[in-house]
């Protein structure tokens, strides 16, 4: 690779400056403020704050309710990531194999991605509405009295289904382009060597797709952790009550609705640490097994 040489030693920093400024203003500065206010108990209107040390953290970590929400978030993230990745991959593999009408099929699958997340949430909620939802009526045919908003597990199922549905087209696009990036010569060689399509997929296609899959794994986990906020909000209809919620929604409830700035700052610092650890883990342990071309 050719190394670019700058004639002036400060020039590269100048080019970096806009990017650094954006990161500093929108990430480092708020993060530093969150860390600071997580050690204080603050009057909502900002008239005074009391230093309380790690009290906000111990309050959160000793709360059984917070732990319950944390466990739900773990399950939610794992299930949403798993299902949206595997269904996206399945659809992409099938779409890659069709010869006739391929573009129509692909357009139909991709177009869902154009739906904005809150709209997707609202559509999903309509499907699961306890009075008019077709899914609820369908479930009733099998004797399942689905009560979204009342039964914890029914609401969890609805939430996961909507979140997966929203994310499939995104994964589909990336997997499809990944599949199309696999050279025809490799595919043909493998087809000569092995008759089993399933085995060819596991031993040839999937390893070659692994950079795409790794990228999508990170994106999907952050999606499930953070971007599902709108879906959670529309599913619980602004009233969490005994319904499952994710950690991000809890930060919003305590900070923006409950005006407890210290407590919700501490919660967001905990989330920051979780994401930090997760990213390190992914890059150190998972990326080693990824084959880049």
């Amino acid at each position, binding site marked *: 690779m050719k190394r670019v040489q700058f004639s002036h030693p400060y020039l590269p920093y100048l080019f970096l400056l806009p990017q650094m400024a954006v990161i500093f203003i929108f990430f480092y500065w708020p993060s530093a403020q969150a860390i600071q206010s997580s050690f204080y*108990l603050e009057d909502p*209107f*900002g*008239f005074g704050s009391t230093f309380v040390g790690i009290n906000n953290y111990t309050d959160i970590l000793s709360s059984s309710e917070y732990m319950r929400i944390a466990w739900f978030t773990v399950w939610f993230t794992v299930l949403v990531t798993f299902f949206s990745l595997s269904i996206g991959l399945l659809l992409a593999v099938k779409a890659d194999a069709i010869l006739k009408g391929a573009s129509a099929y692909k357009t139909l699958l991709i177009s869902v991605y154009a739906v904005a997340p809150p709209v997707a949430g609202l559509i999903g909620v309509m499907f699961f509405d306890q009075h008019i939802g077709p899914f609820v009526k369908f479930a009733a045919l099998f004797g399942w009295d689905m009560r979204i908003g009342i039964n914890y597990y029914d609401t969890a199922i609805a939430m996961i289904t909507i979140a997966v549905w929203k994310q499939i087209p995104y994964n589909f696009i990336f997997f499809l382009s990944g599949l199309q990036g696999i050279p025809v010569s490799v595919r043909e060689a493998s087809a000569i060597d092995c008759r089993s399509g399933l085995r060819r997929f596991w031993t040839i296609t999937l390893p070659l797709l692994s950079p795409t899959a790794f990228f999508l794994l990170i994106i999907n986990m952050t999606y499930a952790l953070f971007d599902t906020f709108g879906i959670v909000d529309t599913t619980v209809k602004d009233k969490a009550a*005994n319904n499952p919620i994710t950690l991000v929604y809890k930060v919003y409830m305590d900070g923006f609705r409950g*005006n407890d700035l210290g407590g919700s700052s501490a919660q967001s610092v905990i989330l920051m640490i979780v994401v930090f650890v997760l990213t390190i883990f992914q890059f150190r342990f998972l990326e080693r097994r990824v084959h880049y071309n």
Partner: protein
Amino acid sequence: MLKKIVFASAAFALSASTSFAATNITWWHGMSGHNGDVINEIAKKFNESQSECALTPVSKGTYEEALAAGIAAFRSGEQPNILQVFDAGAATIINAKGAAVPAEDLITQAGHTFDRDAFIDGVRYFYADSDGKFIGMPFNSSAPIMYINDEALKKAGVEAPKTWEEFEAIAPKLKEAGFVPLVQSQLTWEFTENFFSRNNIQFATNNNGYDSVQGTEINVTDPNHVMMYEKLKAWADEGYFGYYGAGWSDNQKVFEENKAALWIGSSGSFGGLQKTAQMPFSATFLPYWNSIDGAGVHSFIGGAALFAMAGKPEAENKCTASFFQFLTSPEIQVFYHKSTGYVPITKAAYEMAKKEGYYEEKPAAEVGILQLSLPGAEWDKGYRLGFYPQIREVMEREYGRIFAGETTVKDAMETIKKEADQLLAKFAKTAS
């Protein structure tokens, strides 16, 4: 020709300067839809009634969002002149001394007179300090009342219940007639807060939180309150009570669709219900327990109040004061009462609506104000609890668990008390 131009531009400059002279004030609120339109109309009426002040109302979404936006704006010095704060958020703004100018001071400083006795009893204390001085200006005020499906009661051959004992007696007949006997829309407001007010039981220590924030504890474990929820759960198991989640409209819908016989809603629901109900309906007071001594007094006021935010120039405060005066005038109160269903807050406005024959035409519209005008007692003036929006969320969670069969009423109330007391103690620390 030249003369004409000069004259025209002079006239233009003059008119421009007069419109410049008008003081602009802003009003952030948490209403949308029909009720938001009515607010815009009130602002328009105010702006047309005088020329010194120009009021701009801005919808900030829901009550919670309006409060959050107001707080964020105050911290950065960009606060509106007027902020609408709902009942549960009252403690947050009132305890933050210096966030709001007491409405009473604002009005008297602007040279108007302020007469506390002009307001109906039910609204006088909720947004006032423990001496009775108005901090917030009551605006949209409501009471939880019981709406009655007339057809359902006729079919079952029963009368509307006044007490919960009477309800228990007629519930089987209503169920037999093919209706869900009872639905509600907000357990926290209708079966907890106003259970305490209507039955005259202390809701929290320190005079329901009015006297001090230090060491205030909530009284949800009161045996009568536990009994209310044990009854509700038993009724739900028998099919006498339908619970459709914590959302307001999911529950109201069952009544609107003529599937429920009785619905506990807000007096402020009246305007909308007239359009959506598929059957004739009437209304009456929120029932109480005959077995509880001293029960049957008026309920807490619900809804929201307007707060004049501190840190605004004198001229703008004057405009805010004249808007508050305008808002409490009988004509505007009657207009607001009729177009939304919220109760008139002054005695004069109530008399005016009565004189116009409005209640002969629509008796259900009077129930809210009649309930708020019932005799008062020791524990029905209001409550002042910090972090109360969060406490309501804890209640909603535990009540949901009761009806999902995940917990018992006793355990749920103990959990609420534990978490609520922790929140109250935390709030006391922020306020000190």
